[in-house]
């Protein structure tokens, strides 16, 4: 067994265990943390395929930003485990059916001829993977890339526009107005005549 295969086995076992943890952990925060671990090991596997840009971006985007916000929300939810488990037996047949279908599909896909060879596309050009990817994205595929970027931006704007509601009773003060405050507006000196002594 070469060291690459050994490393792959270690990462793959961790990945499968943590992925199982995501769906079996009773505590949703634990489940989210298992997901973080599986992203990490997935990124390690990509790193082994010399796809360092994808590997690092996975950690940067999903672990560093998406999962933090995910955890943020999950931690603040007040989840009642008993209510979540209520319809478990009722929905089991349907769930098992869907799972079985997916397993069969995956077996069909993985056993097809496209998956027969397991060698990675080796980098022969001498420049780094990141640079090569950048050259492709910004030359050959620049229009599809920009189109995808514009669509994502549109999706962000739409999501914010749909959910954003300004409360009418919030006491919002314009920051520009706040910073232009002068000392004379903050303090008011009132002259009072000294009281006469009796």
């Amino acid at each position, binding site marked *: 067994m070469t060291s690459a295969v050994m490393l792959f086995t270690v990462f793959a076992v961790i990945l499968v265990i943590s992925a199982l943890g995501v769906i079996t952990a009773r505590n949703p*925060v634990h489940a989210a943390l298992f997901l973080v671990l599986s992203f990490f090991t997935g990124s390690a596997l990509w790193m082994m395929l010399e796809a360092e*840009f994808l590997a*690092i971006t996975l*950690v*940067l985007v999903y*672990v560093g930003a998406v999962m*933090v916000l995910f955890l943020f929300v999950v*931690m603040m939810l007040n989840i009642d485990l008993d209510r979540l488990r209520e319809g478990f037996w009722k929905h089991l047949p349907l769930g098992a059916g869907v799972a079985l279908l997916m397993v069969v599909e995956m077996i069909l896909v993985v056993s097809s001829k496209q998956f027969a060879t397991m060698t990675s596309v080796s980098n022969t050009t001498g420049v*780094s993977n990141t640079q090569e990817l950048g050259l492709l994205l910004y030359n050959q595929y620049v229009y599809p890339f920009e189109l995808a970027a514009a669509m994502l931006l549109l999706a962000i704007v739409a999501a914010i526009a749909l959910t954003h509601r300004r409360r009418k009773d919030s006491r919002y003060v314009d*920051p520009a107005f706040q910073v232009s405050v002068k000392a004379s507006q903050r303090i008011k000196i009132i002259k009072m005549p000294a009281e006469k002594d009796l």
Partner: protein
Amino acid sequence: MQAVIDFFGPLWPLVWTLLKIVVIVLPLLGAVAYLTLAERKVIGYMQIRIGPNRVGPKGLLQPIADAIKLLMKEIVVPTGANKFLFVFAPVLAIMPALAAWAVVPFGPDMVLANVNAGLLYIMAITSVGVYGVVIAGWASNSKYAFLGALRSAAQIVSYEIAMGFALVTVLMMSHSLNLTDIVRAQEGPYGLLQWNWVPLLPMFIIYIISGTAETNRAPFDVAEGESEIVAGFHVEYSGMAFAIFFLAEYANMILIAALTSIMFMGGWLSPVSFIPNSILWLFAKMAFVLFLFLWFRATFPRYRYDQIMRLGWKVFIPLTLVWLVVVGVLMQAPFRSLPVLNIWFHG
């Protein structure tokens, strides 16, 4: 030497890498210890006091006394806390602060791992640091800790974006993600005027301010906010577990100082051409940035939370996006070969 290499055989590369890691991490931890003393001394003098001066000559043994005190203290785990995550959180906080040093170059060939995607690696690893804070806040089963964790998570995620965009302008200037090449690209006959801080001055300022916010330092220390939420995310921690958070915060400060020196102030390059380049320049630049951090803490009152968010999202991010376009235009425009501009925008 050869005998040692033969003794370890095929394991030698591993042993050699471990040795190099020790050579980086041990002085780093020493620097962290003495940064705490420097902070107390500097802030002391700024407030017309003398700071710690009782332990050892001129108070120089104070950090060691502090470390021994923290080692002796009991680690109290609060009732209802998630024990595993409670203990694991400090580890998660310090791990990225140390791991990021793998790609930091100290000299032309003095780097643990000369990775081509070094800048990406730094951004990815430092973005993981927030987990220590978030998990500590949640696992403590305490309201104050949880509030601190939420504040910190929102703050770190927000300022990371501005920091990332500032670094994108740096990589545009140097045509590389490799940190050694980023320093090399700043080399030239004009010394310190050749460094990135001149053409990227707004990014330089944004990077330092965002770095202060990323490390939860004053005036952006709402995650700890002594006067509001006691001590924020680490309120339930005591003894060595607390000390690890402390170590992580200061190690992160030193890391940000090193990155600022490398990205914007020419790393190990000398500011004037008649003095040779040296690792000492890097240390001097780091000391300067660290002094700025201490100075900020002694000078500014704490920001209000909504103002922090406004500064990050509505001021810094638009500014970085504008400067991204400015740098792009300057790099491609025909007038880049005009007398002053061609110092930075050549090739």
